[in-house]
């Protein structure tokens, strides 16, 4: 097994009642790179993601994080090892303020999360750091807003800020740019690039063009199998990839390949 890899999956299989959703996926995410997992609708990208983060239990196969076998761990334990994920639908705590959202991630390190007798003012010590993080992602000055009041694009940014607060070694982003306008896509791309300077990023995307100049390696998934892997230039010319995208009835995927969203 590759020791320089952050995440390795070996023959990962997931069956749902006799139906094979994920079929022998071998994935190697090298440390310090941005790795994109792409594919047309129904490629089981998110299923793979759920398997790696242990939100789903694989039927067979192994998952390693920094060479350590994490196949049998609980999802919260995986997060504690430094592998933190985001979700496809924006995952904020809607009725908490931006500051509280980020602080939830920070407060774990205090080790007082079970202390029901302690005042919450003890958490104020984390405020400066939380504000700093919000500032870094461009949400400075709105820390007292409630997350639900943010426009969609900003919610995704808040989500990334919360994830970054844990200083995860490996960050998994599930379609961080889904449903976004061009301007927001630029903002998020920038943010991901900045975050990836000191960590590994694995992101799921639907649009090939979006990840073209962002990722170092692209793995293309179709119907639960890996059909191609490599840098954008190679992958986008791969006939199997073109067929997978064009072969679908979903016109958006076809458009994506032609770079309409770029």
């Amino acid at each position, binding site marked *: 097994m590759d020791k320089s890899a952050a995440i390795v999956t070996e023959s990962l299989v997931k069956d749902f009642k006799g139906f094979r959703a994920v079929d022998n996926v071998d994935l190697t995410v090298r440390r310090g790179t941005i790795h994109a997992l792409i594919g047309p609708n129904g490629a089981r990208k998110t299923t793979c993601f759920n398997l790696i*983060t242990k*939100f789903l239990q694989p039927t067979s196969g192994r998952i390693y994080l920094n060479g350590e076998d994490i196949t049998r761990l*609980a*999802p*919260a*334990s995986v*997060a*504690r090892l430094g592998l*933190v*994920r*985001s*979700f496809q639908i924006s*995952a*904020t*705590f*809607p*009725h*908490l303020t931006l500051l*509280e959202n980020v*602080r*939830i*991630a920070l*407060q*774990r390190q*205090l080790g*007082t*999360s*079970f*202390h*029901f*007798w*302690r*005042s*919450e003012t*003890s*958490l104020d010590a984390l405020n400066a750091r939380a504000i700093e993080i919000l500032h870094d992602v461009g949400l400075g*000055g*709105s820390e007292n807003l409630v997350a639900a009041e943010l426009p969609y694009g900003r919610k995704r940014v808040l989500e990334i800020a*919360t994830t970054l607060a*844990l200083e995860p070694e490996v960050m998994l982003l599930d379609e961080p740019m889904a449903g976004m306008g061009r301007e927001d896509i630029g903002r998020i791309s920038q943010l991901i690039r900045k975050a990836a300077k000191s960590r590994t990023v694995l992101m799921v995307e639907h649009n090939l063009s979006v990840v073209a100049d962002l990722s170092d390696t692209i793995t293309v998934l179709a119907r639960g199998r890996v059909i191609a892997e490599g840098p954008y230039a190679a992958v986008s010319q791969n006939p199997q990839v073109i067929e997978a995208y064009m072969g679908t009835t979903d016109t958006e995927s076809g458009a994506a390949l032609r770079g309409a969203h770029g």
Partner: protein
Amino acid sequence: MKNYDMPIFAALIAILLVAPLAIYPVFLMKVLCFALFALAFNLLIGYVGLLSFGHAMFFGFAAYVSAYTVKAWGWPTEIGILAGTGVAAVLGLIAGLIAIRRQGIYFAMVTLALAQMVFFFCLQAKFTGGEDGIQAVPRRPVLGFIDITSDIHFYYLVLAIFAAGFLIIYRTIHSPFGQVLKAIRENEPRAISLGYHVDRYKLLAFVLSATLAGLAGATKAIVFQLASLTDVTWQMSGEVVLMTLVGGMGTVFGPIAGAAVIITMQNYLAGFGEWVLVIQGVIFVITVLLFRRGIVGEIAALATRLTRGRGEAGHIAGNPATTS
């Protein structure tokens, strides 16, 4: 927004201190016991999003334990109440370990099933006195010197227990632990992905809720000098849901208001006999249809709308740059 919880609580306690001048103390004690029960229940439904439909098992069983230890074993009142509370905590730990693995309606059904088991145990066991219950529980001096045989004396002790219970719950909600609870209620998968083992947090919240429900039940047994099957029935579990909903789920003071309304109704409408249940049902339906936030919830929403209207205008006027 400014937090007025503590001033309101101080005012409430001040009113309750002089209330026995106008209102029958046993009635007030009953309201306080049920208010504490509803507050404990609200900790779970309002702040973790778990609907327990078996909270009577903690309330009623703790009542049996405190009544029995005080009457049969001659334990001092305060130790009897603590014993009831402690047994409720253990029962809460066992029930919690089983129930928190499920969510939503399944969680409610598991708690209901467990509560029914406790009910049948209480019905069959020798020490509970079956249909008669445990009657004529003595009121011994608390700590050996505070005489509680007169209702008015005991009232102030019950008020102190209620205030302590309220403050424990209030602190729990506003603690680092409470923050995690809110995060779990808002978005459980996200809380997991941030590394929180959510089941452990839910379990602790469940045990705290069960313990305080037990404290309420144990105290009630001494107030009425009686522990009976009524307090462990599933109807009692339903009643606490009703109180919390009518008062305002997830609000700090809602359960108190809800308990006061429901107990007052039961007392003053007692002349209608079984019809009280029908009236309660109608109130429940009206609450769910028209006042979903409950009494306190609606008042709070109104207050926010009024202050917000002013606050927002000022915010925009002061910071035109934020619109970019």
